[in-house]
């Protein structure tokens, strides 16, 4: 009886076996990688906006305070997107003929709101409150990145649950003195290890166990 398998059959078998194992391990890794990739999360991707507003220019170079436009960040859950009127406080005086600003002028003249592509989006079952974070020494850049260096604004973090939990588990690593909250280039100072716990106590930030309870963010 002739041999059923050629000498190369073993190699093919081993190859198939290894491919199978590789797929079993690799595909989940690949899938996990894809869902975390910037392609999916949108981190670092600046989408086209109705007009090319530059945080770098306004906030970084001109030094306009965050709260000039995002007026409710210290009081309300949402930071607030400025109405066209806010843009026109300056741009009715300067760059009044700029082509780039035509959408702003049109919006104001026609009473039609600007529609910005949303960058930072939380799932519907997550409730975030800006005011309590800002008043408790969590700075803008911790979540939004160094906006003052963004020519076109992009999403700096993916805002997955892990991201929130890192801070809720160990707020002392991220907490800042009140004057540093608006500093977009903040880096933890050298004494953060001693300053952090002190600030946590000062701000009455509730301990890690309390802040990681589900009902803090989900309801």
């Amino acid at each position, binding site marked *: 009886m002739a041999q059923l398998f050629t000498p190369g059959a073993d190699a093919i078998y081993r190859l198939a076996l290894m491919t199978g194992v590789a797929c079993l391990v690799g595909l989940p890794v690949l899938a996990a990688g894809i869902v975390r990739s910037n392609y999916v999360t949108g981190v670092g991707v600046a989408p086209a906006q109705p007009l090319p507003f530059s945080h770098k220019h306004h906030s970084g170079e001109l030094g306009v305070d965050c709260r000039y436009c995002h007026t409710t960040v210290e009081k309300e859950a949402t930071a*607030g*997107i*400025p109405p*066209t009127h806010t843009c026109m406080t300056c741009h009715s005086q300067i760059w009044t003929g700029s082509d780039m600003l035509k959408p702003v002028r049109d919006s104001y003249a026609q009473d039609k709101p600007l529609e910005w592509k949303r960058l930072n989006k939380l*799932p519907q079952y997550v*409730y975030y409150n800006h005011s309590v974070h800002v008043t408790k020494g969590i700075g803008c850049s911790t979540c939004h990145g160094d906006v003052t260096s963004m020519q076109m604004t992009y999403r700096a973090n993916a805002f997955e649950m892990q991201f929130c939990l890192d801070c809720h588990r160990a707020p002392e690593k991220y907490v800042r003195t009140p004057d540093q909250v608006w500093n977009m280039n903040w880096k933890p100072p050298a004494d953060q290890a001693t300053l952090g716990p002190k600030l946590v106590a000062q701000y*009455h930030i509730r301990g890690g166990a309390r802040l990681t309870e589900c*009902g803090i963010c989900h*309801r």
Partner: protein
Amino acid sequence: MTGTPDLAALREKLSQGDGPRFWRSLDAVADSPEFRDYLAAEFPSASRLAAAPERRGFLKLMAASFALGGLTACGAGSGRDYEVPYVNQPERIVPGTDLSYASSALFDGFGNGVLVTTRNGRPLKIEGNPDHPWSRGGTDVLAQASVLGLYDPFRSQAVQHLGRPSSWAAFRADLQAQMPAWRENRGEGLALLTGPVTSPTLAAQIARLRAAYPALRWHVGAGASRDGLYEGARRAYGRPLETLPAFDRARTIVALDGDFLDLGPGQVGLSRRWIDARRAAYADGRLLTLHAAAPTPTLTSAKADHGVVVPAGRLDDLARDLLGMAGGGTGPGGDDPVARWTRGAGTALAGARGAGIVTAGLTASPDLHALVHRLNGALGNTGATLLHVEPAAEPGAGTLAELAEAMERGTVKALIVLGANPVYDAPGALDFAARMARVPLKIHAGLYYDETGAHADWHLPIAHPLESWGDVRALDGTVGLIQPTIAPLYNGRTLPQMLAFLAGGDEAEDALALVKARWRRDGEDEAAFEARFSEALRRGFWADSARPVETVALTQDAASPAPALPVGGIEVLIRPDPTLWDGTHADLAWLQELPKPLTKVVWENVVAVSPRLAEREGIATGDVLRIVAAGRAVEGPAWILPGQADDTVTLTLGYGRNVPDHLSRGLGYDAGPLRPVGASWRLSGATLTRTGRRSQPVTTQHLGTMEGEDLVRVQALGAAPVGDPKGAPAPASFYPPPGSQDRWVAAQWGMAIDLDACTGCNACVTACQAENNIPVVGREEVALGRWMGWLRIDRYYAGELDAPRTHFQPVPCMHCEQAPCELGCPVEATLHDSEGLNLQVYNRCVGTRTCQSYCPYKVRRFNYLDYSGGMTPVEQQQRNPEVTVRARGVMEKCTYCIQRITAARITSAKDAHAPIPDGAVETACQGACPTRAITFGNVADPGSHVSAARRDPREYALLGHLNTRPRTTYLAGLAPPAEPGGREG
């Protein structure tokens, strides 16, 4: 459930004391094996799968589940891809922040004070206005549901001419062409039909309109009018009067044929006054006893300390007996329950001269009202505990019957219907639709393109109260202002605008100016008026605008002969529906799916029959009955109602609507054909037959049946406390005491529910639905046991079958400290936080439903289908953005309104963790309750209201022996001291 148990056997069982002390339904008393199986299955729909473990089917299902499991991740995006700021930010609207406006909720033309919570310019929720002198902070179900009414997609959205879409301009042109002719003949042949008008602005406008067209006839029609009350006062005092009981000065109350706790324009204010007085009496160690006699059970008779079932025809005799006792008589002899009750009530009244209250309900006959007035006069109660004021409704209007007659004669040339629906709600004998067809020009303005709209030449959409400027009087005459909280969604006009147009103005006239015009005093300085008006607007009402108390004198007793009703046969009682009232709001799904307080039936009305009648005629629940009286017939499914008078059937209004494509179409039966014309709510000599067909009513009365003892407790005055012993060490537990180890935790949340105060009115259930985005599931789903309410009100009967006592028990999540549900969850989707809240994490939940089966209180609800999906965009506007809209396949339950707790906690956190003040967190159910039965707060703070309630000796935990340590606890209802040999429930 199925069939009907042997009623004679049940009666025997209950009277022998063999049955349960508290029972929820006849099936529960019968306790048949089928019923036990039904309860054990918990969800009848799931039992089919569980009962047949078939291998092939199981494998097929599992394969499909795995294959399709990933698809759920492929849903459409959330649609929040753009941020759209304002162009010019309005001054007070901060995106994402609540803004509250004081306004009034309308009830059949009467008003109650409310605060409308809006967000981003959308009204989301109605709260009571605690400063309003009449309603004092509570609301009723209609007020709670009115916010759904605003976004109702069934609302009329366009002007229609002969059933085709038209425009306001076309209507204006058409009418303005005819108006000169009207003016010329002084309005001859013009008829105006409105609902009850209490609004001073509308009243002034109608007066002006009548001045412009002196021959115009104004008629008022209401689905459930108060004409009987006013007619009774006319017979007693010679003029129509509203009677307001001052419960705080009373020592005993006698209610004939219900009403003061029942749904109605006075429910909120009266319930509050009643419970305040009852609480004050209890604090003094007394019981403000309520004696109630009723032919059909009502919420008022359900709260009676001494109740009796009396046929409607005997109520007058009973009142005469009481009158005799007030004059020193000894009362009726005999040992039947009615005689015993009469002697008890009469003695109590005679012992409290000048401090008693006798009231008769909305549906009592004018004769009975007149008798009650004379009785109160004889007892010296009039002017002491019973105050009379002029009716809030504007007098001087004709009735619906007069209008129908005029139409029949052909004298009506143009009929203008403003905010009424006579084609549906007029009594059948008036044959309104056919007579209306004889009118050459018919104009209908209403919220809905309803039956009357379909019969009219012109239909005009009117603005919802939440879109309108206006004013309205409460039952005591207090003038509340109505202010818009959103621009009209469908270009509707307000009633003042419509009247201004008819008087020769513009229909788009500034509605605010019309209201202001009514209130500006002659020659008043503009700035002073604006200040006065703004202040009234801020408060929601004109201060001290209640009607002054009138001094009354009884007229000579011109004993009008009672109308000779046919003797014998079945007596038919017509009642407004306890959730829909007269059917004006029948398209509101919240009201349709709200279990009726006593039957717990949803999505339809039933024909209530007494157990004895059912026994005699062989009627089972669900048998379709045909009731014929005066040549007209109504057919509806039977419901055997304990506490119903023997040969009496009760029909309710509000159903049997027939507007194409509307939600309400085809639900229930229309009782209209049998309705007597005029102020009467009953007819005798009817015949009842079984049609042989069956239509099982869908009810929630078995849902959430708990296994255990002492679910409802009753504290007889002077008896040993029935509450749980205080100060006893907590029973041993395997688990560490929760919440005690974290020094940061400021509050431990808990709730106390006073069963003595709960009247079963359902306001809390609807408020919870509005606040927490609770979906409506529909009749078929409810029949499968999938009703979604987070808060249910259990109704228990106690005592004998034919005249039981009734108890209500609201059951939200107990937030057990040792929660059984948490042990069952494989993914920790339900767990505790350090403030004692039993959390439900929707995004973790995988839908095993184990928690539900572990929950001894049966308060968890599962989203079997995507109930919240597929809502129209306009309905989605109502959703509370602070609460997750739950997806298919997740469990949900009461959260103690965690969104409100969070808001208070964040405020306190920003304020250096100042303690959250007691009362800063008010749950939705608590806020809506007219009797303040629900107290919520921090149980760790001994000074809080809820801690005080928990110290009450009446306080007890539901199923406390399970050692679940519920945070929601109850205060036992009160009962009079047990009489020797008397039965106490």
